[in-house]
């Protein structure tokens, strides 16, 4: 099976802080891969490197065979990135925002139109898309951003805490969108979360991170069996030694 993402020995140092300490993982095409761990584990740094925003101090990461450090432009044509707490341009309407973003990835006017329609459908915002983003609730904004990230049919969607700050209903809606869209479009997803239950529900494979390292890796079912735990929270507690 095609390898979508391959990270080997990623290290990232900010001043005296070691954010990533030899991170290695592999994601297969069409897989939803979750990096889970507490705040400060290095999840966002790993995602930012995969999205071409940061350069690794050492180690390599390839997206569909393209080295992120050397071929950033090629990588950007394959990915979409949804940062944690990302915003949208507050003085644009929802539909103007979708139009602006899809124009970068769509090849022609027809493709732009199609992507905007898909994004509108995914977001479920309907008539509210005509309103300015600054009038949206946090949940509506997040749905708009998730829709933007998926509608352009990326080969790899990098989603940092996709349900961050959302209430239960909005979280369920966003998770459902991701799951459904990935199945339909065969998109590969690399996501991060500190919500273990969310990851258990969404991901085909997870990597438990702590202090910049992967401390356990496998499918949620495999990890639960291996560590004889009812859920991933218990697995994580056992792995990092709190239980």
């Amino acid at each position: 099976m095609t390898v979508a993402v391959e990270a080997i020995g990623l290290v990232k140092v900010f001043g005296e802080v070691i954010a990533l300490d030899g991170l290695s993982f592999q994601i297969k095409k069409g897989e939803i891969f979750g990096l889970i761990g507490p705040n400060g584990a290095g999840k966002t740094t790993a995602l930012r490197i995969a999205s071409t925003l940061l350069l690794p101090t050492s180690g390599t990461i390839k997206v569909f065979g393209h080295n992120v450090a050397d071929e950033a432009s090629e990588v950007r044509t394959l990915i979409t990135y949804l940062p944690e707490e990302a915003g949208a341009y507050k003085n644009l309407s929802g539909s103007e925002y979708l139009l602006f973003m899809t124009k970068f990835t769509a090849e022609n006017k027809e493709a732009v139109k199609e992507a905007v329609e898909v994004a509108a459908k995914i977001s479920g915002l309907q008539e509210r898309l005509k309103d300015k983003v600054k009038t949206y609730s946090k949940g509506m904004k997040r749905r708009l951003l998730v829709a933007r990230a998926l509608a352009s049919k990326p080969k790899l969607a990098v989603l940092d805490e996709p349900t961050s700050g959302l209430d239960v209903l909005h979280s369920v809606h966003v998770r459902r969108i991701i799951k459904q869209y990935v199945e339909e479009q065969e998109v590969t997803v690399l996501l991060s979360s500190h919500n273990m239950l969310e990851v258990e529900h969404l991901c085909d494979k997870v990597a438990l991170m702590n202090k910049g390292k992967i401390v356990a890796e496998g499918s949620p079912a495999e990890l639960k069996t291996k560590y004889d735990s009812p859920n991933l929270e218990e697995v994580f507690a056992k792995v990092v030694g709190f239980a």
Partner: protein
Amino acid sequence: MLKGLFNIVVKEIKELVRDPKILLGMMIVPLIIFPLMGFAIQTSMEAAEESMGSISIAVMDFDEDSITENLTNFLTALNVGIVEIDDLDLNKAVNYVEQSNLTGLVVIPPNFSNNISEGLKAELDVYTIFRGGGIAESTSSSAISALLKEFEENLIVQKIGAKFPEEDPKNILDPIDVSERSIIRGKGVDIHPSVLFGLMMAQSTGMPVGIMVLLIFAMQLAATSVASEKEEKTLETLLTVPVNRFTILVGKLTGSIVVAVVGAVAYIIGFSYYMSSFSGFMPTETSVDLAAVGLAPTPISYLLLGASLFMSLVSALALAISISIFAEDVRSAQALVGPLSILFVFPLLFTMFTDIYALPFPLMIVLFAIPFTHPMLAARVAFTGDYQTAILGIVYVFVFTIAVLYISARLFGTEKILTAKLKFKRFRLRKSK
């Protein structure tokens, strides 16, 4: 290379123009506040002019002689309303003047005419009623003084005429008729130098101030444009789309330039209206055919000014963007960019008040090194005819701009744009317990 530029420019313009703070500060305020100020000034000027045409004064005449009569006749002939007060109590007279809405009170003491006839110093007391200030009131007050001065001059002319009947008293008072002309670029022209200096001053204050306002507007816009992307958490998403980072930079520059130019036009329209409110009250002495004497702006001087201004604008924006990259939010970006205004104020003051070549050499070098000095010098090309300095200035600003753009592009292309976090926290006073 610049694929996606138009998309970014359109987005930038929409974002900036729809921002209420920018819309209000850059367009609505100049287009409304300046005309309103102009209207207020025009109205008060008209009121002042009207009040000058209808001056009425009270006169207490303790002299009742020939020159006093001449004085009242003189004032009456000039449409000044005269109210004669017979009461001899000054306090009562003052109260009456105050209540009767008269402009002032002239008290002519005994022997006024006699003293003048005898060649002695005569005295005259003038009381102006102060009701609360204002242009109209001060104008009326000075009008009384001017009228009395004119009467006094008439008396002098009469006295000289009586003493020297063979001569024209005006020639005795003003024996030399100085006729002043100017030399422009080695050619004598029949224009008084003060007229040229007046025009030069108007040119060297109005235009550089306009340039400075435009550049400061544009810099604040560009800084806001980058910092708001960080503050609103949109920058990370934008940096991962398949578009060249340089394109994003140029898109931001272009969007800021377009909005700044529109803002500057709004400012100029508003300011012109404001200035036009004074024009009706200004002397029309400056109606000189500038083209005939080679001082009218030529297409080349316009071209040089435009090129110099454009290059400076781009370099100011690139500078603002380079600096705002290090700010974490809009407030910090504006705080960082704000002190750069010294780079506009410094050349503005020197180009307004001095000849740059007359300055000490090190200071002259410093001024020439500041790129924003050059558009201000280019604005004077029509007067100075110094095309060479203007062209060299454009070349210098071009090189400076390329250097700043290169640095901006480098910074924009690195992770510094995300990792640099300079934040100005609001200063808090701590209460001591």
